[in-house]
């Protein structure tokens, strides 16, 4: 099985504070990996650095997506190369409606692949079923992006965007946080519908309950900016029972 994402010795800092202290991670094509870890372990930083957030400075290491140097690309080029970041805190954009954002994103990526822009009719056909799957009402398309949305609506909107853009690699940053059980099921159904041998996913999460619904191939535990343990889905249950203290103790010792 070919490697889709390869992260080698990744170091990143914000200001003078180092947050990622040497991450090594490989995700083969078709696999779903989860990154778990206590608050402040660097989980969200990793997701943001993957997407190209300029607030973080990468001081060492490299990231390859399908063999291509991700760090050399601006955020939009990473998205066009097939990377998708589901935001932990989706941004509100008053004055830009959802239909406009979805079309702009889809067409930007289609154009970069040399495909034609999609017209309004085709777009509506494409988005309709996906909205139903995510239980998003029709009037949503005319509303400003994330403005006045509940926490659950924002997260479902992130997954809707992912379903539309069909990324090679989806990085979902705490897409489960702030969701009740029903919303969590909807989100999980959306994510699971996209699982495929040609697509990989990286789920960043604090809680094990998401991983009951989206069962990962591998689980990694991040603490102090490095991956401390890796294992199968059972590792997530172990963390759920024992908490993160023992990982942090190990991190402190190393």
């Amino acid at each position, binding site marked *: 099985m070919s490697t889709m994402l390869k992260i080698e010795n990744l170091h990143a800092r914000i200001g003078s504070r180092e947050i990622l202290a040497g991450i090594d991670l490989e995700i083969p094509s078709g696999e779903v990996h989860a990154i778990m870890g206590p608050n402040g372990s660097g989980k969200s930083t990793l997701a943001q650095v993957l997407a190209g957030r*300029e607030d973080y400075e990468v001081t060492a290491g490299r990231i390859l997506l399908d063999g291509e140097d991700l760090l050399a690309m601006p955020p*939009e080029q990473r998205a066009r190369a097939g990377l998708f970041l589901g935001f932990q805190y989706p941004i509100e954009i008053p004055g*830009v409606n959802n239909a406009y954002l979805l079309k702009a994103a889809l067409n930007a990526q289609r154009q970069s692949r040399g495909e034609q822009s999609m017209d309004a009719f085709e777009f509506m056909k494409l988005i309709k079923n996906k909205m139903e799957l995510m239980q998003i009402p029709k009037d949503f398309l005319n509303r400003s992006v994330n403005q006045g949305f509940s926490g659950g609506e924002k997260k479902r909107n992130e997954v809707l*965007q992912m379903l539309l853009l069909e990324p090679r690699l989806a990085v979902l940053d705490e897409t489960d946080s702030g969701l009740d059980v029903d919303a969590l099921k909807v989100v999980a159904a959306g994510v699971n519908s996209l699982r495929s041998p040609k697509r990989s996913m990286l789920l960043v999460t604090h809680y094990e309950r998401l991983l009951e619904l989206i069962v990962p191939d591998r689980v990694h535990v991040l603490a102090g900016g490095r991956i401390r343990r890796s294992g199968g889905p059972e590792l997530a249950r172990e963390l759920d029972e024992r908490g993160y203290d023992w990982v942090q103790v190990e991190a402190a010792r190393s």
Partner: protein
Amino acid sequence: MTVTTLKQALAAPRAALPGSAASKDVRAGALAELGATGLPTPRREDWRYTDLKPLVDAELDFAPRSPDRAALDAAARALVEHGVPTDAPRLVFVDGHLAPELGTLGSTSGIEVRDLDTYWLEREAARGARLSTAAHPLAALNTAYAQSGVWLRVADGARIDAALRLVLVASGAPKVVAQPRIVVEIGRGAEVTIFQQIVDAADTDGWLNVVTELALGEESRLALYRLEEHGLRHAHTSLLAVDVAARASASLGLFDLGGRLVRNDVDVKLREPGAALDLYGLLLAGEGQHVDDHTRIDHIAPDTRSNEAFRGVIGKHGRGVFNGKVIVHRGARGIDARQTSDNLLLSDQAEIDTKPELEIYSDDVKCSHGSTVGELDAEQLFYLRARGVDEEHAREILTTAFATTVLERIAAPDIRASIADRVTARLRTLAEVSR
């Protein structure tokens, strides 16, 4: 064509002033007052950021002739290019002269069109509320030199369905100082929508100095939209004076999209209880442009309400000014006055001066104001880029979105669409040159 400087124009003899014999007293009177007051300079607080010196130094044509065939043709083409519908009731001024060939009010009933001379004569007798030359010196210049004007009277209780279009066209003739005068009196309980559109057939070194006076009778309703868009050479000054009677409401949407030197004054008097004002606008300025919007709202009577919201988008090497003055007069209780000014700078070489001024001489008053100046939101930019939208397009989307919230307040769909077209096109240029 006779060109003179502004100083020479101020000293002109009575005989050199345009208009009929009947109007000479009013015109000469205004000119004498202006001569005594002098032209505004940046030493005056309310003219601190806007210097008329380029206009004072220029040689200009203060008495442009009526447009000839070529000028009318150029104006007609400009009307088509700017999407002014031919079948709409419209009055067209070309270089300050009313051009009946290019538009009429058609079959619109409920509006009486009278000439300016009658207005000058009757107004001296009938209304004490003359525009103050001290407060509005350029309005006095307009009084003295107005080529033509209209006095529209909307009958009591009239409901005018189609928007009246008042189109001010610069034909492209050089050095023209166009000074039309528009007076609209809205009868008791009447409702009317006016769209004042300012169109340049070519970007010349002319100057439009327009005065619009609106008087709202009791319980009347007015929606007025203004779209002003000049290029890099044309100068523009204006006064919009609005007088609101009991329980009448005015909604003014002002879209000032550029010009070499632009100064717009808005002066609203909420004269009787229950008078209400919605005032909103968008101010755009790019390289080589200076756009100054000065507004003043007087809460003269108790139980009056004003809600003002302006947004500015300034591109690289552009300069904007917003000054919003609100005065609550002595004894005017039960006042609700809100004001916001939000501004977006597209470059670190863009500048805006924004200043709220509240003067409150009464109690039982609810007043609020807030102003912001900022750049595009970095989080929003990243979000769009993370979806594959390139940075340039993302900036354009967010800049348009900032302005769109003002456009959404335009009630008339066709007017909203035509203003939105111009705003979007102008923003695209501003965003491009500001990168």
